[in-house]
């Protein structure tokens, strides 16, 4: 009995530690951002200038870059991850083969992002360059579009496996009901299964969006690292995460460091919101 209690207390303390850690990270981000918040105020979010030479900083190009790459990558990934989750849960009846497929999909998530980035830089970028030459855009290969493709590959496993789980949670009776009414497999999917699991699938997309939002290494390698607002999807750009990865080590002045940390704060808050929203939807998703 006493051992039991001690065990529970240890678990509680360790659990609390995580909460303290998370709030600690948040507070230290806020604290270190104060010089930049004081200097630029709300304008920090809307200014296009990022000039370390003149000590003037604004986050707009990076907020746009991040939103653009994350959204594009989500759009690219949706057809793939949706097909994979339907295929694995509904079409592939053999449990064993389905498991193998799923393992491979999940293995994609295990590839270190720097390797995905290298692949993007040396294999994908030349392909994009060829496409750009054909359609008459300056053939630079890297940029928002390339980064989005790389990101979409990295997030497919997330939305696909959540999608698979929620689709297989649709009760058999409902599906059987549709089939007994004469619906084909596709019609059952369209009328019953997908509407039933829509919220869960959506939450999966939201979580993978959050993942795309914060991805750093692979994006840094293929986005072109230009601190400007992108003018087209082929433009080079910069995301909040890649900016920090690029510039933090040599940010010498206090205001420079503080501005980078404030970018980190914005990234942290938005990612948290996306994650919390995704989780709320998943929790509400009960049959």
């Amino acid at each position: 009995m006493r051992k039991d209690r001690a065990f529970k207390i240890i678990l509680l303390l360790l659990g609390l530690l995580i909460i303290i850690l998370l709030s600690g990270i948040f507070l230290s981000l806020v604290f270190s951002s104060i010089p930049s918040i004081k200097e630029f105020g709300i304008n920090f979010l809307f200014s296009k200038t990022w000039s370390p030479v003149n000590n003037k900083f604004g986050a707009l190009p990076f907020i746009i870059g991040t939103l653009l790459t994350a959204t594009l990558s989500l759009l690219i990934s949706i057809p793939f991850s949706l097909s994979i989750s339907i295929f694995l849960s509904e079409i592939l009846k053999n449990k064993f083969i389905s498991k193998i497929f799923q393992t491979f999909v999940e293995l994609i998530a295990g590839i270190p992002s720097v390797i995905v980035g290298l692949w993007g830089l040396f294999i994908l970028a030349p392909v994009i360059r060829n496409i750009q030459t054909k359609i008459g855009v300056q053939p630079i290969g890297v940029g928002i579009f390339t980064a989005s493709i790389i990101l979409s590959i990295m997030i497919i496993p997330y939305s696909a496996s959540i999608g698979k789980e929620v689709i297989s949670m649709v009760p058999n009776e409902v599906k059987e009901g549709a089939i007994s009414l004469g619906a084909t497999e596709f019609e059952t999917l369209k009328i019953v299964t997908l509407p039933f699991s829509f919220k869960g699938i959506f939450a999966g997309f939201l979580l993978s969006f959050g993942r795309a939002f914060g991805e750093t290494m692979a994006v840094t390698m293929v986005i072109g690292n230009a601190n400007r607002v992108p003018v087209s999807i082929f433009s080079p750009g910069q995301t909040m995460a890649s900016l920090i990865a690029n510039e933090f080590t040599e940010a010498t002045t206090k205001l420079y460091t503080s501005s980078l940390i404030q970018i980190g704060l914005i990234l942290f808050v938005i990612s948290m919101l996306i994650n919390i929203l995704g989780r709320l939807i998943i929790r509400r998703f009960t049959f």
Partner: protein
Amino acid sequence: MKKFLLSLILLGLIFSLFTFYGCKSGEEKKVELLGAGATFPQPLYNKWFDIYYTKTGSKVKVNYQGIGSGGGIQQLMERVVDFGATDAFMSDEELKNALAEIIHIPTALGAVVITYNLPENPKLKFSGELIADIFMGKITKWNDSRIKELNPDINLPDLDITVAHRSDGSGTTYVFSDYLTKVSITWKNEMGTGKSLDWKVGLGGKGNAGVAGIVQQTVGAIGYVELIYSEQNNMQYGLIKNKKGNFIEPNLNSISKAASVAIPKDTRVSIVNTDNPEGYPISSFTWIIVYKEQNYGGRDIDRAKALVKLLKWINSEAQDYNEQLLYAKIPDNVKKINEENINSITFSGKPIE
């Protein structure tokens, strides 16, 4: 539960192994000097310190971490290292903020080269103003009349110029922009000098490798990298017109020549756009920085002595290793200044033997 406990114990054992390992090196009586800073001279420093370790009979071990020039300065200011290393000398303001007087010791020279990727791989000539206008996006085509003017014999293609620059803060960008600030008024007004700039055009690559990657992959690209990097990767680079009007090929000799000019006693000087007629105009020192007074933070005299000895060795014999690793040697005029500065280092106010 048992398994869990067992793995905990195992984990503990592994950790303690590491700590014991760390202690062991401290037990034997020898000095381990700590240095941190610029990544540019890191291959050279690693080689030096390796040789020095053997040379001193495993007595003096130098542990150098390439964390970037900014980090090197910061760590010296916080007194957590014995010496810092930087590619950009400390500003007056930084020196004012330091706890005590800091001296700069140039250890080697490097250069930034203009590298590009063009069909037929021609050797091009550039002037400072031309480079500035290309990297500001004011010249956008390779067959622009201003490039042709300096390279009349070369058949330049009708190709868009893709500018490649560093995306990370870097001493290379500092030296490059320092040079362009000195030779172009437009650059001075619109871009300025710094480790990171507000680039108007082009793509950013992380590190020399990133910039080199963009240039090698993109036909029509132009970028700037360390000479060492372009040599190792067989990249074509351009000749640059220096202050005296000569087009200079970047090599170890022309880089050393750039520093064969009047150098102030504190060696905090930029040698870009050098007055030497044979000097390559985008050359730069890399420095080791140390405190002039070595008795601080509980350091003992042995440590200070070891440091001074190391610095003296760097300023003399070690220089012979520079060229194999493609770093230019410190010219004699600068060696002499270094010697005086190293001799001025004290411990509790007394010079160190």
